[in-house]
């Protein structure tokens, strides 16, 4: 089942295309890697799907053509920038999300923050950047959404925290949802992905099944990435 489809999706800023005619389909039960260096259009793509940017041209279909408002309740989007208020604590971030999203699962959240070694009474302003990154993933993945979009979840994170974030993503992956992760840390993401989509200057330059791509080219996705963007 296809949960998300884009057709000739385009966004220009002042005449300059950030995303240009991207055709993509995202199936239930799969993990997708939206890959490309900084400025390749990954964030713009996600923001359009999340309903935060209005496309210049093209079409986005969420599930069976849900309205823009209805689709927001199905999409759990994690932006790169922090989105918590300083006065909140780890616990109140959960309460805040619970008030906002019907599909928020407080039990899952409790388990996740424990696993990420975050204490509930910790203040947001006291979080290190690594802790804040873990919290963002924990709270986003605690929704029972159909489409998860994580923008650079592994940025600026130490090795141990990376493992925890990867585990938390695998745990959430299910036959009825699709998870889209953007990253330029391809070597770390590589084993995790079913499908890859390479963006370059806003255009799709390569897409396909990760294992098949690896077999066909006889090299890792990371090596292929270096070739495409060299």
């Amino acid at each position: 089942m296809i949960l998300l489809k884009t057709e000739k999706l385009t966004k220009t800023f002042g005449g300059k295309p950030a995303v240009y005619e991207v055709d993509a389909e995202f199936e239930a039960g799969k993990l997708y890697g939206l890959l490309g260096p900084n400025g390749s259009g990954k964030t713009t793509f996600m923001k359009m799907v999340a309903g935060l940017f209005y496309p210049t041209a093209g079409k986005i279909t969420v599930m069976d053509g849900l309205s823009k408002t209805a689709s927001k309740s199905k999409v759990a989007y994690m932006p790169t920038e922090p989105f918590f208020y300083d006065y909140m604590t780890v616990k109140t971030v959960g309460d805040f999300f619970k008030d906002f999203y019907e599909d928020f699962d407080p039990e899952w959240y409790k388990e996740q923050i424990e696993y990420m070694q975050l204490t509930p009474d910790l203040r947001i302003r006291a979080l290190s950047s690594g802790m804040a990154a873990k919290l963002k993933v924990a709270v986003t993945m605690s929704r029972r959404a159909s489409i998860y979009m994580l923008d650079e979840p592994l940025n600026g994170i130490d090795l141990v925290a990376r493992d925890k974030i990867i585990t938390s993503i695998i745990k959430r992956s299910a036959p009825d949802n699709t998870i889209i992760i953007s990253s330029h840390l391809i070597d770390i993401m590589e084993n995790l992905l079913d499908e890859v989509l390479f963006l370059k200057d806003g255009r799709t330059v390569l897409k396909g099944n990760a294992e098949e791509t690896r077999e066909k080219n006889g090299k890792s996705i990371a090596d292929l990435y270096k070739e495409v963007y060299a």
Partner: protein
Amino acid sequence: MKYESSKPIYLQVMDSLKQRMVTGDLRPGDQLPSVRLLAIEYDINPNTAARVYKELELEGICFTKRGEGTFVTEDPDLIRSLKEQTAKSIVKKFIKEMTGLGYDKFEIIQKIQKEGDENDSIENGKTD
């Protein structure tokens, strides 16, 4: 686990599980982790983990009990032949590398003999 770049990941995880069966870390009839736990253990995605079990089942090395999970074959002969296969491929690789260094069959056997004898004397030395 560190993955080789050019070989499909499911094959590498299959090899790792087979090796654990050969070394006895996993024993005949043992229950294997669920697909999701296998995915977490090996940092791979759940579809790849599911494929690992599917392929191992096709090879007869694993079997699934409905509603219970996946298990290592109860047939010790299969594990034994797996061990044989592993040994064979290690030896093959070794011979290839040694031949590459310019040694002939006779010299290779001599080298193994010598190394083996040295190992024995070291071990004997320890027990003394």
